[in-house]
Every structure is written in structure tokens, then in C-alpha cells.
């Protein structure tokens, strides 16, 4: 054991002390650590410590076939795995020049938005739990389970779907599935009023969250913040609209923004996004039966599939922000290099370190959860 991991420094000033937030700490999302230096209750300085979830994905992917990697990629972000598959598949499709059939694109939108709803419900629960309101967590996680049921029916997996393949998707919707999606969406919408009463308009929660971890738009742009965290500072940027992929340009949806840029604004943006995702899902449910066609484009024998040489940077909007894969092929059966840019790579490290400076000890966990930082994306 390297001793620096469990001892404090020599003779610190008596009014300052160090506190380890994590890796085993309920105020940390996942397996991650923050070393926080405090003066009384005020955080002077913080340093993120990652790598607890490091698996060496990029190395592993270089050792496996293009098609094998599809099973590997969703593991990178556990709460919201679907966009990982999509971004990787899109990169491979672009390199091969594969044309994805329309129906497959709509099915992918269905999967993406269901995943976004599930991830947001999970985040609300986690955020509420950091402020001591466990009921929201209990409700949120239980309601998220309904979506996992839908995933199980559609893809066979609750959490990891491995539903996208380069060229399309693996399965079509089962009979009556769209009705069940509608019913689940109705239920979720009816529950939103309960969530409002319990959480979003809870006066105590507003007192806790307002003004916590504020970020100006200028600061957010400098730090590379993306996704709901960026939209909470007032910039309406969404990869789905500004760098469109799939069939998002045929779907109507708004990009909710807030201007305050604090934990409260970030939560409100997520809540509005939840409603937008439900709106998108309703359009998918309405239009999917009218879209004919195969669900995947023909691909060569996947076990001897040499993807043409080239490189592509594919981006999608995950529930946490801009997610990108940089894929380089040299024409071989395995990727030469894949690099993933997880949105949390920014949020969990530099942004978190910056925002917790000067905040109070009780708000550290809340800031981390309001940023929706997902450590496995950092560690890969």
C-alpha cells in the first residue's frame, strides 16, 4: 500500500483539514474519490481521484473484432449505456459507408429516448438522496424499472442492451410493445405531478439547491461543459439538433434552457428534458408502424469484417452531455484505435474541482450529482 492513500500530510495548519470523499462514500456517484481540503465548513480546494473503475476499454477494443466490441461499449457508462452503442455503431457505419434503414433509425431513437428517461429518473433519485430525501430515490428508481422492463422486452437486457449493430438494430419491436410504451409514458406523465410535489417544488429542496455550484455561460464554455449542464447556463446547444444524427431532424422537440446555471437550474433542465423525451417517444410510437423496411443493412461476415481504412469522430447527445467516439481503422479486422470522449470526463474532473471550491461541505455531494457526473466515463 502506498501510504499516501490513507494518511494526511505533515502538520497541517490547525484550522485546515483534509477529508476524503470516496471512494466508499454515499455522497459520491459510483466509485470515485474527491480529496477535499476544508477550512471549517468551507471547501478550499478539491482534487478528483479517478481510476477506480478503469478497465482499459480502449486497449481491450483494439484486441477484439469490430462486432465483438459492440458487447463491450455499453459497459462504459452504466446508468445510460444506450448512446455508447449508438455512437460506436455510427462511427463504424460511416467508415464502411453503410446506409442505415429508416426503420432502424426510428428504433434507435426509441431506445435512446427511453434510455434518457431512465437515466434522468435515476439522476433525480440520486440528487434527492444527497440532500436527504430518500423517498424521491425510492420512487425514481422504481419508476425507472418500468422502462427497464420495456428494454428487456425490446432487447433482452435490462441494463445493457447491445441492441445496435453497425448497420441497424438487432430486433424489431414485439407485438403490442408500442402500446406498452404508451401506457408507461402515460403513467410517467401522471407521476410527474407527484414528483413536482415531492421534489421539484419542495421548498426545502429549493432552499438547498438554489445558488449551489453556480456556473456562468462563459465559464461553462471555457471548461468544456456540455449537455444539460450547459443548457442550464442558457446556451441552447444540443447535439441532436446542431449536429443531427438518426432522424432527429424529422422530430419536433424543444431544447429547454435555464439561465441561473446552479444545481437548481440543472435539475429543472433535466425535468424539462424528461418531458421532451416523452414527447419524442410519443412521436416515435405514432410514426413507427408506418415506417416499413428492414431493420438492418446487410453487413459482411462479421467474423471476417475488415472495415475500410479511415477515421471518424461521431457524436451523440447522451443524457449527460456530448458523447463522442473517435475511431481509427487501418482496414483490419480490429479497430486500430478508439477513443471515447465521455461527457463526464469534463464534468467529474475539472468542472467539479472548480465548482466545489468555496462551497460548503454539505453541498459537495449535491454539486456532483447535479452535474450528473458518471465516473466510469472518466475512467473507461
Amino acid at each position: 500500500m502506498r501510504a499516501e492513500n490513507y494518511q494526511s500530510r505533515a502538520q497541517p495548519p490547525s484550522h485546515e483539514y483534509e477529508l476524503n470523499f470516496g471512494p466508499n462514500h454515499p455522497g459520491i456517484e459510483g466509485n470515485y474519490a474527491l480529496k477535499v481540503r476544508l477550512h471549517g465548513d468551507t471547501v478550499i480546494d478539491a482534487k478528483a481521484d479517478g481510476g477506480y473503475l478503469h478497465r482499459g476499454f480502449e486497449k481491450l477494443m483494439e484486441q477484439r473484432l469490430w462486432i465483438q466490441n459492440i458487447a463491450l461499449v455499453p459497459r462504459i457508462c452504466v446508468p445510460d449505456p444506450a448512446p455508447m452503442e449508438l455512437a460506436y455503431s455510427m462511427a463504424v457505419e460511416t467508415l464502411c459507408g453503410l446506409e442505415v434503414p429508416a426503420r432502424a433509425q426510428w428504433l434507435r431513437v426509441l431506445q435512446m429516448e427511453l434510455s434518457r428517461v431512465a437515466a434522468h429518473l435515476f439522476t433525480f433519485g440520486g440528487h434527492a438522496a444527497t440532500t436527504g430525501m430518500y423517498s424521491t430515490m425510492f420512487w425514481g428508481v422504481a419508476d425507472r424499472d418500468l422502462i427497464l422492463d420495456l428494454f428487456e422486452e425490446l432487447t433482452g437486457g435490462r441494463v445493457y442492451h447491445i441492441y445496435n449493430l453497425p448497420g441497424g438494430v438487432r430486433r424489431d419491436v414485439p407485438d403490442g410493445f408500442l402500446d406498452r410504451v404508451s401506457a408507461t409514458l402515460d403513467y410517467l406523465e401522471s407521476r410527474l405531478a407527484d414528483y413536482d410535489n415531492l421534489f421539484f417544488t419542495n421548498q426545502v429542496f429549493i432552499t438547498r439547491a438554489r445558488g449551489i455550484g453556480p456556473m456562468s455561460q462563459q465559464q461553462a464554455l471555457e471548461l468544456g461543459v456540455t449537455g444539460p449542464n450547459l443548457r442550464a447556463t442558457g446556451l441552447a446547444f444540443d447535439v441532436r439538433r446542431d449536429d443531427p444524427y438518426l432522424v432527429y431532424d424529422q422530430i419536433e422537440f424543444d431544447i429547454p434552457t435555464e439561465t441561473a446555471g446552479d444545481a437548481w437550474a440543472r435539475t429543472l433542465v433535466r425535468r424539462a428534458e424528461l418531458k421532451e423525451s416523452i414527447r419524442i417517444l410519443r412521436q416515435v410510437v405514432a410514426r413507427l408502424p408506418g415506417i416499413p423496411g428492414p431493420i438492418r443493412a446487410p453487413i459482411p461476415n462479421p467474423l471476417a469484417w475488415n472495415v475500410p481504412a479511415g477515421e471518424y469522430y461521431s457524436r451523440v447527445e447522451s443524457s449527460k452531455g456530448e458523447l463522442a467516439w473517435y475511431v481509427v481503422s487501418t482496414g483490419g479486422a480490429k479497430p486500430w484505435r478508439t477513443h471515447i470522449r465521455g461527457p463526464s470526463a469534463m464534468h467529474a474532473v475539472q468542472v467539479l474541482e472548480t465548482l466545489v471550491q468555496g462551497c460548503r461541505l454539505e453541498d459537495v455531494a449535491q454539486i456532483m450529482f447535479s452535474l450528473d457526473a458518471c465516473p466510469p466515463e472518466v475512467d473507461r
Partner: protein
Amino acid sequence: MTSLSDIPVIQTPPEAPARGGNPLANVFDDFIRYCRSRSLFMLHYCTGCGAIELPPAMTSRFDMERIGIQPMVTPRQADILLVTGYVSVKTLKRIILTYEQMASPKYVIGICSCTVNGGMYWQSYATAKKLNDYLPVDLYIAGCMPRPEAVIEGLKALRDNIEAGTSDNWKDYYQRYDHYLGNQQRLFGADWQTPTEVIAEAKHYGLFGPDTLGEHTRRLEDHRKPLEPLRMTLNAGRLEHME
């Protein structure tokens, strides 16, 4: 490759003779064991991706509290260490520290295929492959990842084992400390040590076995360093400006 004999198997302890032939002599012990099996505090430590199926198992839909299981925050309070998924080497060190701080009787559950044999990260340089090399595992719940039902089923199996008195692997850690320490040293380097005095504890609780000490524990003596002040690990560069 290890042979089958190296793998700790759950051993039934020899039947303790009833004191003085009194059939009621063990009633008190049985009662405590029953309570132990009905009240399991699990450590709230998400070591890997399997942790994502624990919130559903804990919360409204599957509700672990029905069978007396609730999450606890610090290792001192906890009974079960759930190792949820792949364990990177960095995490494994923390898990061992955590495990040694827990109050026995303590139980380790390996969830997900990755704890059994590396799972789909078998090629990865960063993850440990076989959890029972480093810690005495009581139960494996395989799957990638196991559903909440499977997790609860596994916890129920642990409960039954505890009630039957067959889940005593925590004693194995004291009795064969040399074996576990050897594997830890092989991975983390020969100077690996933990702040917990496992050998002294083994003596204190009467669990000192013939394999507690060995060549690996002797190495501890060579590397034992007094607790010394260490360099500040917090933003070293920036701090120098401030001071």
C-alpha cells in the same frame, strides 16, 4: 493455474459439543445466529457496474428491507461486503482495507461474472480476475449483470447459510492469512501492507491457525514502516504557491 485444493470451499465447522450435555446450552448461540441471519447490513460501496442493479433491489420494487437487509455507510457498521462487478487493482486495495476494517462475522459476496473470472474484461490489465484469491468469498452471484431477483436470491442463500452456520469464511481469512497476503503481495508488490493488524486480531479472537503465518507474513516485518508524515497529495503544484 491453481488447483482445486487452493480454492477455499465452504467448510462446515465441526459440531460444537453441547456444554454439559444440556440440549438447551446452544439456544443462546442459535438465537444470536438467527438474528445475525435476519439482520444484514450491507456496505454501500459501488465497486463496479453491478452496483446499478442494487438500487432497484433496495428500492420500492424489490425492497430488500423485507428480508432485513439495509445499506450502511461505513465499513465499521456493515456485515456484508458486496463486490459488485469487476474490481480494478486500485479498487481492490480499497476493498481489502475496507474488508479488514469490518467487524466480524463479515461476509463477502461477489456479484457479476467479473468477480468470478474476470468476465468480459479477462484481457484487461487493470482488473483483478479472481476475487477469492484476495478475499474469502462466501457467495458468488454470477451474471452480467445479475437481475435484482438474482441478487435477492443470492442474499437469501447467504441468509440461510448463516442461519445454518455454514458461512464462516471470514475465519478462513485469519486462519490462512498467509495465503491471501501472498496473493495480494503478488499483485500489489512486496511492500504491500494494511493498517489493520490481522495477525494480532487472529490471536486475539482465537483464530490463529497453522497457516496464519508464513513466508509472506514474514515479509511484512521487512517492510513495516512507522507511520510517517507524507507529502500532501492535494494539488501539489497549486499549493506550493499558496504557502
